[in-house]
């Protein structure tokens, strides 16, 4: 039997390491493009201040990038250490984007990042500009491939179960690449990264403007960040993730949980702005609703329905029962009865095998599950509504606050009067944590909302874990938390130190603190 404690601890460890990793990745994605834009301006105009901008923001980029690499190392190997059965069961599909990510993206990004930092005197202007763009493209490519992998976990297209090898196998690579969930996720996630980079530059530039130092440098940084940020936040919101919730059963379930939609309402459904979801009673207390809004947002139509949780539960229970049949047939096949009739019978129901596997948590043999166990497994198919409902609202709220900020900042920057608006500069400075808040809650919605599955409708999280001991996972979890936290403190210390110092840290003699000494 699999230990539930090992599964829970492994989930905690994966969530912790992924969230830590994703403190640094979005800033890398966004700053890389901002650096490329700044350097393009430098190459086109020849103005030294833009080169200084690339070097200074590049220094902060480097401090952030180092921890991105460190925390990324864990991610590449953690599927094997802690999710070994998952790795076996879906490695045939899931491993490919990871390997291609290495070949296509990591090599590009990591090879050229060295030249970005150390190649200033060795490369021509254009060569260095190309290097910077390749770093930005490489980091975005890596986001593409990892989101193709992640999109497949949410909506596993292009694959089939093979009873002989006891795993999922790839049948359609094109479907994997052009998975609609992955495409939407990619745009949403990288654009969120661009927003993070833009807020970072905007907030720190505002700090210099508030302190009235290095104003020429700060004003130009502010201008680029506000324009880039406005375009990016619009992409995040307009090409929002919610359009990806139409496809696949688990995505539908996630949507119903996010919106606390207990019943299926006639289209277009109303949108619950806030409320107090009560999962035990299957209702939302104190709900404030906007008519029609949910149906329009979620289905981009006036006539498509949004499935409610109660209806989904009925569908899931039926699929669990079919899944039990599928599991019984799989056992026959594995025991050597591979007659055409058994194969045909299995093929007819194998799409529900994953639902049958949900019962593994309660009974080893699946086919003999009791009525109570089936009911319990059915309830398991709905993730925790309360936490999803509220995380989603925190994410969206942060997004709209950032939209307002960038709109004001862009307007002020276009009219060249941001320095006379201290309220705007303070607002920008204190908005610094917002993109991280939005991103972390967003990932929580995406991944917690996928539960109880590791691969939607295919493999329950419960079955995915490695056969390691509870003590092992406790040990690694605590060691990782301790080590990462120490590194994070060091990183924050350096980041704050150099952000405060500003472009004077370049030691060019042209900036504030150097002139004060002179």
């Amino acid at each position, binding site marked *: 039997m699999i230990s539930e404690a090992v599964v829970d601890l492994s989930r905690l460890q994966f969530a912790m390491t992924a969230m830590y990793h994703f403190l640094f990745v979005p800033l890398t994605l966004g700053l890389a493009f901002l650096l490329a834009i700044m350097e393009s301006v430098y190459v086109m105009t020849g103005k030294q201040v833009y080169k200084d901008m690339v070097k200074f923001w590049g220094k902060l980029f*480097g*401090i952030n*990038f*180092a*921890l991105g*690499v*460190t925390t990324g190392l*864990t991610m*590449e*190997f953690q599927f*094997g*250490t802690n999710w*070994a*059965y998952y*790795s*076996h069961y*879906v*490695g*045939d599909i*899931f*491993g*490919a984007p*990871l*390997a*291609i*990510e*290495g*070949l*296509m993206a*990591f*090599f*590009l990004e*990591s*090879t050229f*990042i*060295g*030249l970005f*930092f*150390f*190649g200033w005197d*060795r490369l021509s202007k254009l060569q260095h500009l190309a290097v910077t763009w390749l770093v930005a493209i490489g980091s975005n490519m890596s986001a593409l491939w990892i989101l193709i992998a992640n999109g497949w976990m949410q909506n596993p297209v292009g694959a089939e179960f093979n009873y*002989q*090898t*006891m*795993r999922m*196998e*790839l049948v359609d*690579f094109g479907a994997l690449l052009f998975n609609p969930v992955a495409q939407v996720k990619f745009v949403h996630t990288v654009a969120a990264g661009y927003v993070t980079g833009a807020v970072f530059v905007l907030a720190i530039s505002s700090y210099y403007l508030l302190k009235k130092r290095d104003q020429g440098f700060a004003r130009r940084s502010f201008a680029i960040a506000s324009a880039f940020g406005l375009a990016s936040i619009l992409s995040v919101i307009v090409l929002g993730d919610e359009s990806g919730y139409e496809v696949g059963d688990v995505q539908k379930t996630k949507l119903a949980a996010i919106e606390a939609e207990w019943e299926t309402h006639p289209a277009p459904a109303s949108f619950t702005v806030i409320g107090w979801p009560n999962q035990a009673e299957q209702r939302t207390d104190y709900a404030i609703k906007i008519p029609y809004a949910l149906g329009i947002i979620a289905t981009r139509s006036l006539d498509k329905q949004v499935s409610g949780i109660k209806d989904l539960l009925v569908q899931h229970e039926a699929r669990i029962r079919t899944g039990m049949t599928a599991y019984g047939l799989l056992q026959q096949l*594995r025991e050597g009865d591979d007659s055409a009739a058994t194969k045909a019978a299995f093929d007819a129901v194998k799409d529900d095998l994953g639902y049958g596997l949900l019962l593994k948590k309660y009974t080893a043999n699946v086919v003999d599950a009791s009525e109570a166990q089936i009911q319990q497994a059915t309830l398991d198919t709905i993730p925790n509504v309360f936490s999803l409902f509220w995380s989603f609202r925190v994410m969206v709220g942060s997004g709209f606050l950032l939209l307002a900020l960038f709109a004001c900042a862009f307007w002020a920057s276009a009219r060249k009067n941001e320095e006379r608006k201290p309220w705007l500069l303070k607002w920008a400075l204190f908005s610094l944590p917002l993109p991280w808040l939005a991103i972390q809650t967003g990932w929580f919605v995406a991944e917690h909302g996928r539960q109880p599955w590791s691969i939607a409708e295919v493999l329950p999280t419960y079955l995915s874990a*490695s*056969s*390691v001991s509870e003590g*092992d996972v406790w*040990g*690694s979890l605590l*060691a990782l938390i301790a080590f990462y936290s120490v*590194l994070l403190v*060091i990183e924050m210390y*350096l980041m704050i130190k*150099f952000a405060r110092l500003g472009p004077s840290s370049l030691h060019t003699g042209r900036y504030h603190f150097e002139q004060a000494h002179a």
Partner: protein
Amino acid sequence: MFDYEVLKLVWWVLVGVLLIGFALTDGFDLGAAALLPVVAKTDDERRVVINTIAPHWDGNQVWLITAGGALFAAWPLVYAAAFSGLYWALLVVLFALFVRPVGFDYRSKLDNTRWRQSWDWGLFVGGVVPSLVFGVAFGNLFLGLPFSLDDTLRSTYQGNFWQLLSPFALLAGVVSLSMLTLHGATWLMMRSDGAIAVRSRHAAQGLALLFLLAFIGCGLWLWQGDIVGLQISQMGAADSALNPLNKTVQASNSGWLANYQLYPETRWAPLLGIAGALLAGLAASARWAGLAFAGSSLAIIGTLCTAGFALFPFVMPSSLNLAASLTVWDAVSSQKTLGIMLVAACIFLPLILSYTLWGYVKMWGKVRTEHIQNNPHGLY
């Protein structure tokens, strides 16, 4: 498109290529970091050593990450069984590697002796530990790992980290540690001058000797010792999808030397390992840095091929249930996945090699203390 059996063989070669790529590139920066306390005595000297690898270590490390990804994609069962079984060994390597990106980037950002020395020790550990543990892990492959598979192909490992530290495995650890630090030493001979180059030359001579003793020692142990290798006595057709448990494996391959008798043409691998290290040691004595680096590179290629050829077709032998041993025939992905991955590798590997080479060409030249002193803020 391609025959399944051929694809299985090709992926055995490609995993080997990625591991060799990792050892050839990341090997010298792990080695150079491991040599920090030996070859660099002052802060400026340590910065010279670090700046010889500064523009390259990150790209080099991607060979390891990509090898991990390729293992996941091409041999999912190996990825699953090896990393969950060798749980703490892998974590120890990861924790050691964690220090490197931050160490390289943060160390020279503050002008504080204790700060810098702490990171220098971190970089030293980050160089030594992975170099040692990789060898210990390979050594354990020869001894077989205590894992089994149940009928749903879930792997269970019955052992712990300390049991990996058997004498033979530790000797294999010495092989890899001396091999990669030798590579680091010959790299530093090429890329530095003055005192660092002299110390690196001495280190290279000693390490070449240590490597030869350990490598030949491992060979003699396999030849005369009691290590039992495995052989497949019966399995299904190699060009079909196979269940690892449906084969018969016998412990009849004393010292894993059967392949060298069966295919005498593979004997170039151990000979290349020895010849490469000899060349590295002799060229170091003659102060031919480039030739010494070529020698340590050949030693790496020879050593990894020696291990791969001996174990073939096994990649992860089991000591608990011989039939559960994972091989290139039955631990692999589907034909379709292997084919797609091969196309990706054929497109990207040549590209990677060419831009990596461009990067090295652009950054080539000796790193000198004066250069470091004139650049207190622009370099690591």
